[in-house]
């Protein structure tokens, strides 16, 4: 038995039944990391000693009779490097936070620890979660475990790659405009972006606070549901966390979509969609129909305007959130400056990468007097219309279905040259954040042909070969149970597609 190939739930069951010790599980993960990191670079830091110390502690507690009900006891979990871990560097993949050691844990990290999970390390990402490829990381790019010439997607590319490469059983990511779902699609794993307010953002380093949510990435729907169940719930430290919702997701793991009403927005299959991706998504539609779901097409309003509105809102919030990096309280400080203003400017200019600077400037522009109404306020009105469009759709449907991304994983280096083109890849994901909705990305087959190319005009058409395709299921607010049930039903009809991993 190769321990690292188990699912998180299988592993914790074996640990509870004393077939495996927590230390054995952690050592298996650590040795896999040592073996595979040279190929994939999923991690920024690995907490080797700390993870082994946690393992001994959890094992002792388990033997004393604790954690009997925890679905994640003893499970090694990776955490995206924008989620604070007490005493362990949390860098946001940026030079400006290279040496930042948080004096506290994010609430999600505390909850994982309270459930007996083991924090294994911190995963690579696009700098400050701004990007779709994990190439904007100050520490270098992560490679896709399916093909190391390809990006893993982003911004939670390190988390998705670590899970696909079996260097972690589960990973936490964060999703502002698709950053959990798109890398999950590109790496052939499953990821959930929860309803805004389901998971505490306390200790998540802010990018765009009105859109950010933390969520799980795993190799099965069940592992995602278990992790979400552990990390969700109201938190006094995050006042946007909603109190009333139910957080029981594991009981939704049922293979049953009879009578489930699934809507497909007509525009989702228009030009720009890779035909291989379309084929994969339609394959999943056929499965849902076969299983008794009612599938219909409909028109989703205002969704074409989601990307421009998203970039206005996210950049505006980023320009405000990132003003805290001033070289005074933490992080990088320029070595040489004359006076306070220059300290700020030189620290920030030397500490931030190109994409982050670009978004801070767009944010400053759209919020500046004379442009505020035309851009920021306009974007907030577009956001309202997008929300209304979804509200109307959910009067008719339980779930909205579509692709997660218009292509499979692109080649390294193909996306960064043209920011607008990169932003277009977010077409199916950003509207979900704008409306605060939950969504899951789940694998729905592999493409045929060559790797997708972004070199041509417009959204790339692909001659893909053997790269994973992601299906997105969007639920109504706090409708996580619906999308988990549907994803689980689909998963039951397929076996897990595993990449050929370098050893």
């Amino acid at each position, binding site marked *: 038995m190769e321990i690292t190939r188990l699912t998180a739930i299988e592993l914790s069951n074996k640990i509870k039944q004393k077939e495996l010790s927590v230390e054995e599980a952690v050592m298996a993960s650590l040795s896999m990391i040592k073996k595979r990191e040279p190929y994939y670079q999923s991690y920024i830091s690995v907490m080797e000693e700390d993870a082994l110390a946690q393992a001994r502690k959890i094992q002792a507690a388990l033997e004393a009779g604790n954690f009997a009900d925890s679905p994640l006891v003893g499970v090694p979990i990776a955490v995206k490097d924008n989620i604070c871990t007490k005493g362990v560097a949390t860098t946001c993949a940026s030079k400006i936070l290279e*040496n*930042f*050691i948080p*004096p506290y844990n994010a609430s999600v990290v505390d909850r994982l620890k309270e459930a007996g999970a083991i924090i294994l390390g911190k995963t690579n990402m696009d700098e400050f979660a701004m990007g779709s490829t994990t190439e904007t990381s100050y520490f270098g790019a992560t490679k896709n475990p399916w093909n190391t010439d390809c990006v893993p997607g982003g911004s939670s590319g390190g988390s998705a790659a670590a899970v696909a490469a079996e260097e972690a059983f589960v990973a936490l990511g964060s999703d502002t405009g698709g950053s959990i779902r798109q890398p999950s699609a590109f790496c052939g794993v499953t990821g959930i972006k929860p309803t*805004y*307010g389901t998971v505490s953002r306390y200790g998540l380093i802010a990018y765009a606070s*009105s859109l950010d949510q933390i969520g799980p990435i795993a190799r099965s729907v069940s592992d995602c549901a278990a992790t979400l169940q552990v990390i969700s719930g109201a938190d*006094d430290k995050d*006042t*946007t966390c*909603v109190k009333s919702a139910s957080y029981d997701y594991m009981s939704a793991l049922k293979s049953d979509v009879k009578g489930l009403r699934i809507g497909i927005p007509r525009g989702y299959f228009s030009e720009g969609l890779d035909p291989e991706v379309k084929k994969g998504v339609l394959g999943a539609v056929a499965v849902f129909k076969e299983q008794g779901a009612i599938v219909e097409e409909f028109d989703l309003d*205002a969704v074409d*305007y989601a990307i*421009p*509105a998203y*970039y206005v809102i996210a950049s505006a919030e980023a*320009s405000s959130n990132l003003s805290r990096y001033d070289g*005074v*309280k*933490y*992080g*990088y*400080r320029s070595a040489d*400056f004359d*006076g*306070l*203003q220059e*300290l700020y*400017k*030189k620290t*920030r*200019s030397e500490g*931030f990468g*190109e994409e982050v*600077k*670009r978004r*801070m*400037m*767009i944010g*400053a*522009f*759209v919020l*500046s007097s004379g442009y505020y109404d035309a*851009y920021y306020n*306009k974007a*907030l*009105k*577009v*956001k*309202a*219309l997008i*929300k209304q469009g979804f509200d109307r759709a959910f009067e008719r449907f339980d779930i909205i279905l579509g692709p997660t991304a218009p292509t499979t994983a692109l080649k390294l280096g193909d996306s960064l040259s*043209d*920011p*607008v083109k990169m*932003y277009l890849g977010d077409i199916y994901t950003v509207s979900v954040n*704008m*409306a*605060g*909705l939950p969504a899951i990305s789940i694998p729905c087959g592999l493409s045929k042909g060559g790797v997708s190319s972004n070199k041509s005009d417009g959204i790339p058409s692909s001659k893909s070969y053997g790269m994973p395709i992601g299906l997105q299921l969007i639920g109504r607010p706090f409708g996580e149970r619906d999308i988990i049930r549907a994803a689980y039903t689909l998963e039951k009809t397929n076996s897990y597609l595993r990449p050929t991993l370098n050893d």
Partner: protein
Amino acid sequence: MEITDQTIEYVSALAKLSLQPEEKEKAKKDLGNILTYIDMMKELDTDGIEPMSHAFSMKNVFRDDVVTNEDNREELLKNAPKQKDGCFMVPKTVD
């Protein structure tokens, strides 16, 4: 949208960035392209629509004003690039 030198100077000052000459040229081009793309929002009729900042409206989430954290000044200062006498150190700002 054409981005002028003046606009780039202005937004980089707002973002507290000082750009190198070649960075400035690239930023002018990139911002121009991005804003041209963003301008497509203007096609959408939003008359009479209330701007929405959060997807779910929540108001006045209060808690009791009590201190729950401990005094961890030393730990917090460990992250400061420069410190003195238990405080963050900054360049002299008032003569």
